[in-house]
C-alpha cells in the first residue's frame, strides 16, 4: 500500500480545488497538482470553473477550498492606511485572498467570510503589470509585500508563488519585497540573486497569544529559527509585533518573546520591526466572539479611534508600547522600531519624536528596506 505524505499542518484542511477553465494549464495549477501527488490530499476533487460562473460555492464545515483564479483586478495596490494615523506606505502585490491558518484577531475573517483560499493563477498578467510599473523608472523605489490579504508563505508549499515572484523581481533593483508570514517555508530562497532585495518577515507575539489565539501556525521558536537561517544566509529580516494584545500578564509574555528574539538574531540583522496594538473594524468583534468563544482580550477598553476602528484606550496602548520599546532598546534596537498606524501623540509619548521629525515614516522605512 502506498504511504501518503502529510502536508504541513496548515494545509491539511484543504478538501477541494477549484480552477478557472482558463487557468487549468497554468504553471500554478500544474504545480499544485504535482505537489499534491503522494500526499494525503492526492485524491481531493478538482472542479473546473466555467467562465460563466460568477462565484464558487463551497461550504463543508471546517474544510477549506483552494481556488486558482484568473484575477481581473489590479495587482499592485496601496496599503489601505488612513490619514488619521501614520501609515508605513507599503505597497501591496495582490497575489490572492484569505489564509489557511486561523488567528482569532485576524481581520481577514471580516473581509472573507467563506473558507475559500484564492490564488491569482494568471501570473503572466501579474508580472506584466508589475514589470510596467517597476520598469517605468528605475530610480523610483518600491517597498512591496504580499502579506496584506493573505499570508505571504502559507500556500508556498503548493503554489511556489513567492519563489516565482522573487525570481521575477531579481531583474528590478529598485524593488524590495517583504514576505510576511506566520508559516515557515524558505523554498523561495533558492530563487534569490540579491539577498538585499528580499525581506523575510515573521509576526511575533507573546507566547500565550501564540498558543491560545493562533491556530495551525508555526511556533514562535520555528519562526525565529527561520529568521536566523535567513540572517545567516545574508538576508535582513523584519519582525512584527502586530497585534499587541493587552491581557493579564502581558508584561511577562512580551518580555519573554522580546528577550527570545535576540537569542536568534542580532539587532543589525533586523531591517525594521513594527509594533501595532490590536485594532479592528467594529464588525470584527462579534465575528471573533462567535468564531473563538474562549477569546477574552476583545473585552477590554476599546474605543472608536480617529479612523472609526476600535482601539485600546490610548493610555493603555502607551503603557504597553513604552514597556516593549524600552525592552527592545535594552537589546540594542532603536531606529528600526516603528508603530503601525499610530498617532503623532503616541509616537511622541513613546519614542520622543514623531515621523514628521525624520521626513515621514514611509521615507524612513524605504531607506531601511534598501539598507541605507
Amino acid at each position, binding site marked *: 500500500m502506498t504511504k501518503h505524505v502529510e502536508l504541513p499542518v496548515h494545509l491539511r484542511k484543504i478538501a477541494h480545488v477549484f480552477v478557472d477553465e482558463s487557468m487549468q494549464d497554468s504553471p500554478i495549477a500544474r504545480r499544485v497538482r504535482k505537489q499534491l501527488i503522494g500526499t494525503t490530499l492526492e485524491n481531493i476533487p478538482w472542479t473546473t470553473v466555467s467562465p460563466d460562473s460568477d462565484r464558487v460555492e463551497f461550504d463543508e464545515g471546517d474544510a477549506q477550498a483552494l481556488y486558482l483564479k484568473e484575477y481581473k483586478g489590479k495587482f499592485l495596490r496601496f496599503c489601505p492606511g488612513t490619514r488619521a494615523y501614520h501609515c508605513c506606505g507599503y505597497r501591496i502585490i495582490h497575489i490572492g485572498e484569505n489564509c489557511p491558518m486561523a488567528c482569532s484577531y485576524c481581520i481577514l475573517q471580516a473581509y472573507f467570510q467563506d473558507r475559500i483560499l484564492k490564488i491569482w493563477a494568471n501570473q503572466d498578467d501579474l508580472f506584466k503589470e508589475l514589470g510596467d510599473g517597476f520598469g517605468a523608472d528605475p530610480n523610483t523605489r518600491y517597498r512591496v509585500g504580499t502579506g496584506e490579504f493573505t499570508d505571504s508563505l502559507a500556500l508556498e508549499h503548493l503554489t511556489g508563488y513567492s519563489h516565482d515572484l522573487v525570481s521575477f523581481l531579481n531583474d528590478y533593483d529598485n524593488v524590495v519585497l517583504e514576505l510576511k508570514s506566520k508559516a515557515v517555508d524558505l523554498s523561495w530562497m533558492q530563487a534569490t540573486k540579491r539577498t538585499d532585495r528580499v525581506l523575510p518577515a515573521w509576526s511575533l507575539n507573546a507566547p500565550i497569544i501564540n498558543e491560545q489565539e493562533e491556530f495551525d501556525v508555526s511556533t514562535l521558536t520555528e519562526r525565529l529559527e527561520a529568521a536566523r537561517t535567513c540572517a545567516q544566509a545574508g538576508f535582513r529580516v523584519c519582525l512584527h509585533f502586530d497585534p499587541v494584545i493587552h491581557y*493579564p500578564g502581558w508584561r511577562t509574555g512580551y518580555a519573554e518573546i522580546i528577550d527570545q528574539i535576540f537569542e536568534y538574531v542580532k539587532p543589525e540583522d533586523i531591517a525594521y520591526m513594527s509594533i501595532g496594538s490590536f485594532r479592528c473594524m467594529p464588525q470584527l468583534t462579534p465575528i471573533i*466572539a462567535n468564531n473563538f468563544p474562549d477569546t*477574552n482580550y476583545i*473585552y*477590554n*477598553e476599546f*474605543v*472608536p*479611534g*480617529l479612523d472609526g476602528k476600535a*482601539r485600546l*484606550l*490610548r*493610555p*493603555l496602548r*502607551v503603557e504597553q508600547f*513604552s514597556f516593549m520599546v524600552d525592552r527592545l532598546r535594552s537589546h540594542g534596537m532603536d531606529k528600526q522600531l516603528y508603530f503601525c498606524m499610530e*498617532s503623532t*501623540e503616541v509616537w511622541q*509619548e*513613546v519614542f520622543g519624536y514623531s515621523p514628521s521629525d525624520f521626513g515621514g515614516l514611509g521615507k524612513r522605512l524605504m531607506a531601511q528596506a534598501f539598507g541605507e
Partner: protein
Amino acid sequence: MQLSKEIITASADSIDDTGSHLFWRSNANESLSESINEFGQAAPILASKSDTGFKLIAGYSRLSALRQTNQLVLVRMVLDADDRDMGLLYLADNAHRPLDDGMRLAALRYFQPISDDKTLKTDILPRLGIKPKSKDAKLLLSWLDMPDNWQAHLAAGDVPLAACTPLNRMSDQDRLAVEPLFAGFSWSRSNAVNVLTWLFETSKMTLKPIADILQQSGMTNILQQGLSPKDAIARLCAAAKTARYPELSSLQNRFDRAATGITAGTRWRMVQPDNFETGGAELIIQVKNETQLKKAVEDLEIMAGVPTWREIWTLGGKND
C-alpha cells in the same frame, strides 16, 4: 381541514376552552361585552366536535362574554383539524389584534414542537408580522431557547426583545444575577442591551461572575434604594458603564471636572471629542446676537488664562 357551511348553536358550558392552541386567550373586554349585549353575537366562534361536546378553536373572548351572560353560542364547525390547523385558524381569527413580542413568542412556543425550523421561520413568523430574514426574526427564535422565567419577563414587557442576545451569552448563574434588574422596571431596548452587554463583557474582562460585579459596582445597592424607575435605570446604566470602562470613565470624570473649572460662569461648554485619542478639547457655544458674541469672546480670553488647561491637554498622556 374544512369549515362547515352551517352555523349551529350550543351552550357555552359545552365548549372546552382550555386548548393550548388558544395561546393569546384573554377574557372579554368591556366593549366586546357591551356590543354582545346590545347586538348579540355578530360572528360565530370556531369549534370542533369532541368526545364530551365541543372544543373551542377560536373565539375565546366572545365565548367568555357569552358565558358571563348565559347566552347560547353561535358556532361554526371545524372538521378534521390537527394541532397545526387549530393554531393557524386561531391566528387567522385573531389577525386583527395588535401584537407585542410576548404574544409572538407565545405563538412560536405553540408551533415549535409541531413545526421544523424552516416552517417556523418562513411560514409562522410572517403570519406574526415578522420578515423571516429580519433581525427580529432571529431574536424571536433565539428567545425560544431562553428559560421559562425569562420568557415570562418578555411576555410581561419587563425586558425588550433585543436583550436576548446578551442574555443568551450568559451562564445560568449570571442570568440569575441580572434577573433582579428586570423585576421592577420596564427597560428601553438600548438601556437593557447596553447594561447587559457591559455586565457580560466586564465579567469576561475581569474573570469574575456578574453577581460580584453587581455588588462591587454598587448596582446591587442602587436596586435597594427605592429610587424612581427613571433614576434607578439612569444610575444602573452609569454604574455598569463605569465597571466596563474604568480607565475611560476615570479620564472622563477628570476631564469634566477640569472643564467645569474652566468654563464656570460662562455659556461655553467643553467636550472631549475623540475618546482621549488626542489631548484636544472642543469648546462649544451658541450665540444669538452681538452682545452674546462679545461676551463669549471676553469669557474665552479669561478662560485662556486658567492654568487648568494643562491638565486637559495632558490627560491620558504619559506625563499625566
